[in-house]
Structures are given as C-alpha cells and as structure tokens.
C-alpha cells in the first residue's frame, strides 16, 4: 500500500513545536517571570553571602553568573516539560506522524530560547549593579551561548525523564547537576579567563571541552530520545 497521507518534514515539525512554545510563553510569561525573578534573587543573595567587594567580584563574577543560570535553567526545564505532561500534550506530540527527534529538537530549542532570553536580561542587570562592562564582549557572550547549548541539550533529555518519575520536579537537579558539571565548570573557567583578559592559550582548552560536550550531549539525546518517550 502506498502512503498517500502527507507527513511534515523534521524541520517543519521542529519549528511548529518551537513556535507553539514561544507563542504560549510570550502570552503567559509564567516561565520567564519565574526564571527572571529567581535569577535576580540569587544574585542578591550572592552579593551578601560572598561580600562581593570589587576585588572578589572580579574573580567570582563568572561563577556567580553560571550558578544563577544553572538554577534558573532547571526551573525553566521543569516547567517546559510539565506543560506537556500535565494535560497529556506529550501524547498529542507522540501521536503526530513526526520523527521523535523533532520533539527533542523542538523542546530543546524552545528551552534554549527561554534560557537565552533570561540571560539577556540578567547580564545587563548584573553589569549595571556591579559596573562590570567587560561582560559585553563577543568572547564572553560566545561562551555563554556554548555553555547554555550543552546544559539545555542534556537538561531537555533529563527533564523528559524526571517528569515521568514519582518525584518529578525534585529529581531534575539531582539528575542534571552531576552530569552537567563539566559544562558548568568549563564555562566558568573560560568566561572568567576572558574576563581577566587571559591569553588565548589558557582559554582554548575549556572552550574545546565546551564544544566537545555540546556535540556529545546533543548527539546522545538525539539517538536515545525514543527510549525516553516510548512505553
């Protein structure tokens, strides 16, 4: 029998999911506001917990920012997957005649956009609060992008898993952080190197590790996403 029904392309289905997520989020702004308020609170707490005077600030800026992004990121990942799970929409996605990797890429790209939007707001606020204009340089922003890609890649896979367990939201950071340590530490190393104006030779290794991590942790979820959503 020939297949006369039309099927959407991988790209078409991926874009449909991304646009759906962005449209819903730009309307409700639930996820943005939660991530954003949370990020600002973390920065305020760090300010007093670490006594961020000028000297300390120069050395820990990258660490403070990445810790903030990591925590805010788990909020976003959890919420984005709960939206699919709570009203059975995940089944709706799985019922469509699209490749499962379209679902992974669609959700991952939406999650990445959410994280980048939050970063785009948090970074200028941080720069203003601490008069830290050095963060607006291409190298630093590039590292933020590379780090976010790897973190979201593995985070999207793990949030799809955690949302199906009994502990749900609570489990995601426990699953995600030990696996994401390389990407977080490499990002901290590279970005603090860039901030302190280190030689290229010193920051090239962490950047290479970031790229390696990004490639691997997009490829592995892509290959095994079926195993996470099937029954």
């Amino acid at each position, binding site marked *: 029998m020939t297949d006369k029904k039309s099927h959407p392309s991988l790209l078409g289905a991926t874009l449909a999911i991304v646009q759906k997520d962005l449209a819903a989020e730009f309307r409700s702004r639930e996820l943005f506001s939660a991530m954003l308020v949370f990020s600002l609170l973390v920065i305020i707490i760090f300010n007093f917990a670490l006594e961020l005077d000028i000297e300390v600030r120069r050395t820990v800026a990258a660490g403070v920012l990445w810790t903030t992004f990591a925590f805010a990121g788990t909020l976003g990942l959890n919420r984005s997957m709960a939206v699919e799970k709570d009203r059975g929409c995940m089944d709706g996605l799985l019922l469509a005649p699209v490749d499962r990797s379209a679902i992974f890429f669609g959700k991952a790209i939406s999650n990445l956009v959410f994280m980048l939007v939050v970063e785009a707001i948090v970074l200028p606020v941080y720069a203003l609060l601490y008069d830290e204009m050095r963060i607006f340089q291409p190298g630093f922003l590039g590292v933020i992008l590379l780090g976010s890609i790897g973190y979201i890649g593995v985070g999207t896979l793990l949030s799809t898993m955690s949302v199906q*367990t009994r502990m749900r939201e609570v489990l995601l950071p426990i699953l995600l952080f030990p696996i994401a*340590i390389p990407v977080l*530490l490499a990002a901290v190393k590279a970005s603090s190197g860039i901030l302190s104006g280190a030689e290229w030779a010193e920051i090239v290794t962490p950047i290479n590790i970031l790229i390696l991590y990004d490639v691997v942790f997009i490829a592995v979820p892509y290959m095994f996403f079926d195993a996470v959503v099937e029954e």
Partner: protein
Amino acid sequence: MQSKPIALTILDVVSIIVLGISTYLALVFAPTEAVMGEVQRVFYFHIGTAWIGLLGFIIAAIAGITYLVTKDLKWDRFEVAAVEVSTVFFFLTIVLGSIWARPAWNTWWTWDPRLTTAAVTELIYIAYFMLRQGIDDPDKRARFGALYTLLGGISAPITFMVIRLFRTIHPVVIGNQSAAAQGGFSMSSDMKVAFFFALFAFTVIFVDLIWHRVRLGALQEKVEQLKLKLSD
C-alpha cells in the same frame, strides 16, 4: 538456578584467600616506604578498590548500552550489580585515600581532579538509584537507568578533564618523576609484588561480588514471578 553453583562457592573461598594474601603482602611483606612511613601501606588497597570502582563504572555503562540495544532485562541486572559494587568501592577508595592524605597532604580532602571526579561519580550513582526508585514499570526503569549510566559514563571523563584545568596535587604513581614532591614515590620490586597482587585480588573479589549480585537479581525476579502466579 535454585541452589548456589559450586563454581561460585569456590570463587568465594578463592576471594577470601587472595584478600588474605593481599593483606599480608601490603602490611607485612612490602617494605616500609622511606618518606611517608607505614601509612603508605594503605595505598595498595586504595589502588585495588579504585581499580574495581572504575571497572564497575565502565562495565555498567557497557551493560547499559547493551540493554538499550537488546532490551534483555538480564543486562539490566548486570548494570545494577556493577553500579552497586562500584558505588561501595569508590566510597572505600575515597575513605582510604583520605586516611593517606591526612599525613601526606596535611588534609583529609582536596579538590583534586581524581578526588572530585570520584565524588561526582558517587553523586551520579546516588541520582541513579533515586531515578530507578521513582519508576514502577520495570522496562522503563531499566531503560532510564541504562541511559543514565551511559550519560554518566560519558560525562565523568569530561569532568576529569575539566577539573584538571583548575589544579592538582594528586600523585601520578607510575612513571612520573616530578610527582615525588606531591607524595609520589617509585616502587621497589617487593612493593610491585604487593601492588600487582592487590589489583589481582580485588579483580577476583569484584567478579565474585558481581556474580552474587546478578544471581540475587535473578532470584528476586523469580520471587516476583511466583508471587504473580499466586495472585492469579
């Protein structure tokens, strides 16, 4: 299946014997190290436990991939066995290392790549057990577990690479002269005997424990099966 295989009983006895010999070699036979003194003797078991912790870690990742390909629950049992044994022995490694580090480095703990990676690996294992606990469907539990060991198996070496960028004081024991200042040392031939025998002894113990754990898993499944039959 029901009664314990004779080969396993023999392996149990052999394990105890080699552990005894290895203890003797480490505590009596090997000469006292000149700089560090008696505390260096902990090193033989430290390496032995670290070796099978690592072996278990690698075997778990391989068993995980094999499960994902074959979907045979036998590999899931193998993976759980390897993770459990590895969890215990990595923990022992860390404890033994701390006992050695206190006099050698003047601290119980340091954020060195090997130590940190071992600690992160322990956390991955704990997350693994929590993940499995939260899933009722055995097939899904096996699938998620396998995938998680695979992710852990890939990320742990990268963790090691990254932390090395920060700093290290851990000695590289074999084939590195400049490490002496950090507590490294070169081994005399008697030390080498104790060293390699410890590796051998712990490998035997590892096989023995894995065998027991896989057999236990199979027996658990058998019990489940019988329970289901009764309730029908």
